[in-house]
């Protein structure tokens, strides 16, 4: 007789693809909220993005509140 049973694998590891995805999300999110000074939008808008600072202004209040140096 056979049956299917659920067991818990208590292996301490993270799949490599998951690690890559999560590490990328971590780096991108921290940079955007904590440090972006026009870099992301400069890919599309060029030098003007450094003057507009859309991401900086959008994240401004959280940047201060979370403890990042802002300006």
């Amino acid at each position, binding site marked *: *007789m*056979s*049956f*299917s*049973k*659920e*067991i*818990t*694998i*208590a*292996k*301490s*590891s*993270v*799949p490599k*693809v*998951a*690690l890559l*995805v*999560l*590490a990328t*999300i*971590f*780096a*991108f*999110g*921290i940079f*955007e*909220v*904590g*440090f972006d000074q026009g870099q992301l939008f400069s890919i599309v808008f060029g030098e003007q993005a450094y003057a507009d600072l859309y991401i900086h*202004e*959008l*994240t*401004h*209040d*959280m*940047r*201060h*509140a*979370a*403890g*990042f*140096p*802002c*300006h």
Partner: protein
Amino acid sequence: MSLFITIILLSGCSAGVIHGLVNLALVEPYLDKAIGIENQHMFASGEAKDTSQFWAEYYSYRAWQKGGQLLAGAILGTAIGALFGIVFGYAKNILPGNSFAKKALALAAIMWITLYLIPFAKYPANPPTVGDPETILLRQMLYVSFIAISGFGALGFYQVFRRLKSKRFVAVLGYAGFIATVFVVMPQNPDAITAPADLVNGFRAVSLVGVSAFWLSVGLIFGVLWQKLQPDRVKQARFQ
């Protein structure tokens, strides 16, 4: 694996939105007050004029910034949640607690202390009006370096902790000695604080409450989801 990633991102994002909501309620009044002082400086120096057009632009600009609290909270929360998930994935077997929910809370407490509380004690948050734009790169470098040193230091002493069969508290004391030395050696924030002390201290207190609410939320939400869904549980065929 997708469930693993979903739990991590969902808990981080939710905790980030909670962080944003706490900030909207507690931190915004201090930000408004600090930006009000900046405005007075601009009027006094002639950089801006106290006109109805100025205030119309100001309120629209502040609405954009305040709305950003929630979006930035979601992005920051998802990012920190991703780091939290990675560390939990590797450390879950050694974390204290007899359930994943308790283990997640224990990890949140450890990360809150090493990645936030100790760096905050050295380089506390500041409201607008505090901070010389000329020193921004130096301040960012100091802040990030301190967090990285504290985080990697904790990781290093965790390896010591894991290898010790007894007297594991030695690893905790080792980290404490290490970070105390770094705390003393690292340079101070170079900017003088000219804003009123009650504004700066009040801002720092509510900022601490907001970030602490994030870490508590991410530990709770992640722990409950992990406990309930256990993404590392797999089906195995057994023959008897």
